[in-house]
């Protein structure tokens, strides 16, 4: 069996007395979309932050291509981060125009030359449906527009691991489904994707596998049909799915 691209082993995260994540074991392969579903407060965001190496786990390790990245010196962590990209739940924009925001990551990572970056940025803008926005002041955008810009600035980096925290939460149905199509296009490629969401429909449509996170623990893990089928059958009263958006 080939090595998983991302592996989480026995991850714990505590803030003081509060235990946010308990014994998380997970793996994600290239080309796979892992849906991470769970109610608000279950620890999805914390988990993504740990994977993005923004914080250190209290115990356990995070491995990228079989090599431990958590707990390593900053230099190694920076290198690891540069292989990933994250879209935060409520993204913030730099005090600049949209183009600058999108180019930030490419500049920081030293990808390509200035003209190439510009081109790529424009393409990314188009793919999230915001062509023509490049000179707009990024802080004057609506929540939904910011979310799409955040996505653009992540995908423009062509990361090997893409972490999405509720990427379509603020979008109207049409934009959301456009983004869904975009994300779908990543499937089967070289990118591993973790999609944290509490939108079951989206999960059902996009994910290959699903992990259910409740109270900091993975309560279910498996193929999309299996898990979501279970959830449906167990009905709304099941604690495993309390707080999940079930649109039917």
């Amino acid at each position, binding site marked *: 069996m080939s090595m998983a691209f991302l592996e989480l082993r026995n991850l714990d995260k505590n803030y003081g007395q509060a235990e946010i994540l308990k014994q998380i074991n997970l793996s994600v392969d290239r080309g796979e979309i892992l849906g991470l579903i769970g109610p608000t407060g279950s620890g999805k965001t914390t988990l993504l932050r740990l994977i993005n190496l923004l914080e250190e786990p209290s115990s356990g390790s995070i491995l990228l291509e079989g090599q431990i990245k958590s707990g390593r010196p900053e230099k190694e962590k920076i290198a690891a981060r540069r292989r990933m990209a994250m879209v*935060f739940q409520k993204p913030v924009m730099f005090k600049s125009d949209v183009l600058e925001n999108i180019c930030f990551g490419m500049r920081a990572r030293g990808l390509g030359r200035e003209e190439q970056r510009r081109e790529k940025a424009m393409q990314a803008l188009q793919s999230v449906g915001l062509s023509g926005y490049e000179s707009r002041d990024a802080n004057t955008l609506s929540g939904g527009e910011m979310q799409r810009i955040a996505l653009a600035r992540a995908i423009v980096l062509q990361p090997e691991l893409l972490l999405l925290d509720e990427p379509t939460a603020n979008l109207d149905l049409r934009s959301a489904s456009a983004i869904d199509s975009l994300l779908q296009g990543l499937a089967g490629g070289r990118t591993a994707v973790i999609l944290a969401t509490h939108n079951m429909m989206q999960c059902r449509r996009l994910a290959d596998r699903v992990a259910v996170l409740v109270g900091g623990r993975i309560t279910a893990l498996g193929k999309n049909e299996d898990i979501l089928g279970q959830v449906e059958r167990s009905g709304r009263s099941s604690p495993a799915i309390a707080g999940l958006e079930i649109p039917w």
Partner: protein
Amino acid sequence: MEEIWNGILRAIELIITLNPEVMETTARSLFISFAAVFMAAIIDIPLGGLIELREFRGKKALVNLIQTLYGLPTVTVGLLVFLLLSRSGPLGELELLYTPTGMVIGQMILISPILTGLTISALKGVGPQIRDTAVSLGADESQVIGAIIKEARFAVIAAVLIAFGRALSEVGVAMMIGGNIRDYTRVLTTSIALQTSMGNLEMSIALGILLIGISMILNLSLSRFQGR
């Protein structure tokens, strides 16, 4: 009161006739203080970034110390730098005493606490999410510092303008290190001191008005930046 009115008239006269000595003195004042702020900024702004963004033992104490030094008396700085640069002092070989370069050094030291401290305050005002975003996008430490300074750029520029104003209107360092040598280290503030001790009160007031005028222009620029 008569002197003040006459002083105002004199100031207008000096400006309109572009009185060469006054123009030269003013240019020298601006140049020396500008050089001091420029060079201090190169060191202090990134330094402020480092201090604000890193965690280390004694950080709070350091920031406290910096803020305490905001009120450094100019004569004290002047004295310290004098002892450094004097022929009998450690840097005597460089022959920087009574030179404009020496004044620049003295003013750099004077304004560094303000520049560093206000930069730290400015950066504090940038939300932690900006930092996370930058880090997530792959920025290393210096890139993060750069991004945050850029985010806080208006407040940082305000800090620079404040530091410039302090350098421009101080007299202790200019007098002790520069020596008020005519055509060489005489600046607006030391000229005012000299004119006053000579009893030429109108001229003194006129120069003071000139200095206030420049400060006013500085402050107007400041409020433009703060308004954003």
